[in-house]
């Protein structure tokens, strides 16, 4: 029996805090409140436990252990109280999956119209997985993919299907 392209694991303990603000004006306050440097465009900054992801020119996503999400949301809201900004704990509206294995990029290549294999080590790409929106960044040797929880079962099925044994894209 051939081996699966990647191991798909749903990440149940991932907390996420959405931050929308003028990132130029509020950058220093966000960096101080999260304890991380501001990421460049299409990049992530991580210290191992927390990851700050660049989502759009006015949006960031702080990914952290779920238990810390509430506290981090409050800290950020306090730090941005003088800004026109939004800080929201979105942990419960997201589904997250770890895609790990030597051929993880091949599984994603079947689902996304973006060159995920060429993404730098600290890169993040928002794109679609088949029919639904998703965000993808690298973690260790593999990837983390996030999507909306309402389509979480669909994403899980997609990923497991794309990683099915014997479906690798290497030339035979």
């Amino acid at each position: 029996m051939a081996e699966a392209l990647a191991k798909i694991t749903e990440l149940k303990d991932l907390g996420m805090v959405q931050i929308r603000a003028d990132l130029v004006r509020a950058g220093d306050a966000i960096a101080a409140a999260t304890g991380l440097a501001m990421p460049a465009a299409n990049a992530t900054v991580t210290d191992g436990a927390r990851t700050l992801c660049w989502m759009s020119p006015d949006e960031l996503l702080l990914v952290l252990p779920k238990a810390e999400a509430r506290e981090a949301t409050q800290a950020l809201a306090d730090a941005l109280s003088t800004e026109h900004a939004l800080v929201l704990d979105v942990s419960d509206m997201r589904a997250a999956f770890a895609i790990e294995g030597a051929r993880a990029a091949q599984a994603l290549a079947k689902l996304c119209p973006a060159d995920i294999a060429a993404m730098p080590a600290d890169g993040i790409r928002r794109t679609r997985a088949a029919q639904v929106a998703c965000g993808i960044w690298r973690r260790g040797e593999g990837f983390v993919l996030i999507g909306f929880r309402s389509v979480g079962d669909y994403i899980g099925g997609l990923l497991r299907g794309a990683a099915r044994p014997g479906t690798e894209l290497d030339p035979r």
Partner: protein
Amino acid sequence: MLTLTCPYCGNAAEETELAPGGEAHLKRFGPGSSDEQFEDYLFARKNPKGVHFERWRHAYGCGKWFLAARDTVTLEVFGTYKAQTPNPTPEIVAAVQAKRPNWTPDWTSTPATTTSAESLTE
């Protein structure tokens, strides 16, 4: 297949990641305008065979609206630029004219640069 580079996040987005928004640079005619102006604003679209300016949204990416100059016949893309631009920028006009020497802009006001409208983006 159409691939447009989003001027906000810099990613090359393939057509299925984008949502089309029709013709770019429409001027709104609302209360106080004549019936003809309002009708034109609602319904009159250029639909040219050749160079066209369009609105697109990077729907599955950063979510921003941007503008694109492309050829409706060859699907060649001349460039993309930010939505806070009243007319195509000089760079876009130059890129179009490099490929289509006979093409001339059909707007009269001076093209504003994106830098002056930058403050509107946030």
